[in-house]
């Protein structure tokens, strides 16, 4: 395979795919499988694994051609964890068998993934996790509890980190596994949230047997593997272009324009300040995108999640106030199990409450500020007392 895959070639392959599988008459799942097999799923992946060994920058060529032909996409929102976190980790650390087995149904959405990382006692301090995996013959026996697991109730597979050696410091005794969510001992319970619905789950693992062939990376090296997963989680922001007034600011400006009776001077001042901040955040994301395209990635990505979390929270809070009497109402408190977080299709009260999670999920704002301070600004790390102590001897 020549390394010199170019835009023309990628465009030609995309046209061939469309000719052989016209989107209008092809079943959605069949189209996605054919696209994977043509190497047009993620062009920078290896040949045979949904890619062409091409530069990542050629993916937009494929996406544009397919969008123009109204071809189905693989709904990255629904398969976000698999796509953004499991896939790059499997690609980086998986055996050939693992790559062949998991990547195709992951990408096509035939199999949904979830992530068994956080625990009730190990959130921001993820490496303190206590879920145990003990070797028994060719298998590992896993016991413990995980939490904040989105999609666990629909997931076929999970990426899991568990403690395999309690006698070494916490970062060194962790291993990384692929867990079958249909195995005996895996129990998924809805975790009802502040919004009234259960988009997340608690997952209880009791004597779950995982074959050693489903370990990713060496025993005891799971923390390093998890870093790949977590880095990919944060990298995904900043890729897409947002239009002006895209995102949460768009809903509140629409209400402002359509309902003059709700306007007050105080809300006007706050709305304008947030409008400017949302526009500047949009421009900062655009600048980051341009840096990536130019091959000079900047550190701005580390800060974008912080900015969007705060903006979402402030804008949605303002929106509830703007609605006045209507802001006192709430759409629906019945227990539901959504598969997606949908800010735009919901009412202001939901947006306000759900946005509170934006500064907690995927790394709290406080942890991200530490990361910016230490890795971007080079400020000294805080002294730590847990680095050279065996996990079993740490205070809990």
């Amino acid at each position, binding site marked *: 395979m020549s390394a010199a895959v170019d835009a023309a070639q990628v465009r030609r392959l995309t046209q061939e795919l469309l000719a052989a599988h016209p989107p209008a008459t092809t079943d959605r799942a069949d189209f996605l499988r054919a696209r994977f097999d043509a190497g047009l799923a993620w062009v920078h992946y290896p040949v045979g694994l949904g890619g062409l060994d091409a530069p990542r920058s050629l993916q937009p060529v494929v996406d544009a051609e397919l969008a123009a032909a109204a071809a189905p996409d693989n709904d990255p929102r629904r398969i976000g964890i698999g796509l953004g976190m499991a896939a790059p980790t499997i690609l980086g650390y998986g055996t050939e068998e693992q790559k062949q087995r998991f990547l195709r149904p992951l990408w096509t959405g035939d199999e949904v993934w979830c992530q068994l990382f956080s625990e009730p006692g190990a959130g921001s301090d993820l490496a303190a996790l206590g879920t145990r995996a003990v070797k028994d013959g060719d298998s590992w026996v896993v016991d413990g509890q995980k939490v904040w697991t989105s999609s666990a109730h629909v997931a076929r597979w999970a990426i899991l980190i568990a403690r395999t050696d309690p006698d070494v410091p916490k970062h060194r005794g962790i291993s990384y596994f692929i867990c079958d969510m249909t195995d005996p001992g895996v129990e998924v319970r809805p975790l009802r949230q502040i919004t009234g619905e259960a988009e997340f789950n608690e997952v209880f693992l009791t004597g779950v047997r995982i074959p050693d062939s489903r370990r990713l990376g060496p025993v005891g090296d799971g923390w390093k593997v998890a870093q790949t997963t977590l880095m990919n989680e944060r990298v995904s922001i900043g890729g897409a272009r947002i*239009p*002006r*007034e895209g995102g949460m600011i768009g809903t509140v*400006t629409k209400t*402002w*324009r359509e309902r*003059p009776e709700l*306007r*007050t*001077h105080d809300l*006007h*001042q706050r*709305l*304008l*300040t947030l*409008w*400017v*901040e949302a*526009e*500047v*955040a949009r*421009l*900062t994301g*655009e*600048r980051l995108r*341009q*840096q990536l395209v*130019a091959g*000079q990635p*900047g*550190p*701005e990505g580390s*800060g974008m999640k*912080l*900015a969007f979390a705060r903006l979402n929270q402030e804008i949605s809070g303002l929106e509830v106030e703007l609605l006045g009497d209507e802001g006192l109402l709430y759409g629906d408190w019945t227990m539901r199990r959504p598969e997606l977080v949908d800010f735009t299709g919901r009412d202001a009260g939901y947006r306000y409450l759900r946005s509170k999670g934006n500064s907690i999920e995927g790394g709290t704002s*406080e942890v*991200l*500020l*530490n990361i*910016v*301070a*230490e890795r*971007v*600004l*080079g*400020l*000294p*790390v*805080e*002294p730590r007392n847990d680095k050279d102590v065996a996990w079993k001897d740490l205070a809990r």
Partner: protein
Amino acid sequence: MTVQTEAAQAPDLLYTETEEDLRSAVRSLLADRADAPTVIAGIESDTPYDLRLWESLAAGIGAAGLLVPEKLGGQGATHREVAVVLEELGRSVAPAPYLTSAVVATEILLALGAGGGPAAGLLSELASGSKVAVLALPFSASPADAAAAMTGTLERTVSGVAEAAAADVLLVPTADGLYAVETGGDGVAVQPLVALDLTRPLATVTLDGASGTLLADAGPATEAVGRGLLAGAGLLASEQLGVAEWCLTETVRHTRERHQFNRPVGSFQSLKHRMAQLWLEVVSARAAARNAADALATGSPDTPLAVAVAQAYCSEAAVRAAEECVQLHGGIGMTWEHPAHLYLKRAKADSIAYGTAGRHREAVAALVELPAP
């Protein structure tokens, strides 16, 4: 409905190689000639700016004529390059009448057509740096004030004119149009004021029996003055970015070195979070300032909004960065010999210059149709 929710074209928010070369040249000049002790010594002398530094910047590097076409003796560059010069001038707070003369006055003269006549002649002199011209309006005048400024006669007193003390020529808006008045002529008095910002002198200009050259009639002059103030406001954002960047960099440097409680103070989370937050504001300010510079350079229809957004954001970002700089330096941040105060004074004065953040938010409200109650 004409709500401007879609940018006309994608702005280029990066820096070109040429721009980075220009930055290096300006930065090393300022490092040589305008380090903090030099700037502090300069503000305690009676001169409004360092003439030798100005010659090197204006003529040596050719920075004064960046906006001016080559046939008029300039560099034929754009607002994007000017923005880079202003970032560096913000980082050094060197007194130099760049924003007022090489940007605002130059932009006004360019908008007048500069096809020939007195405006073209003056433009060439500004481009070479051999003359300095300033607009005879208070430094606080925003782009929205251009029409109101075209009033009265040459007989007048104008207070708070930035860098008037450095000017050879005043551009004076009147009901008849825009006049060029030589500061050395009869009937012109420039009385220095004691300014909050020590690095950008202000003065009261009194014209009493002064004579001037009419550059343009009221109609075109109004438009040109508006354009000058718009460019001034838009590019001031880059100066503010430079100020904020210096403040953050120095604060990080200081808190890494300064030890208390047997630790570098920069290792305390309460301080780290404040600096990380400032960093986020600085990178955001950069995107906003680049967007304004690019809009001005390309003549985008989005320019008024890009400028209003940049000013509304960057003014406050620079002030906050300077205030945090003073606080996180502890006691030394309150002293005269440490340069932090120069940046605080510049940042605060800049937040009023060419329209406050609040006035620019009002402009945003009008441009995107978010009306007041």
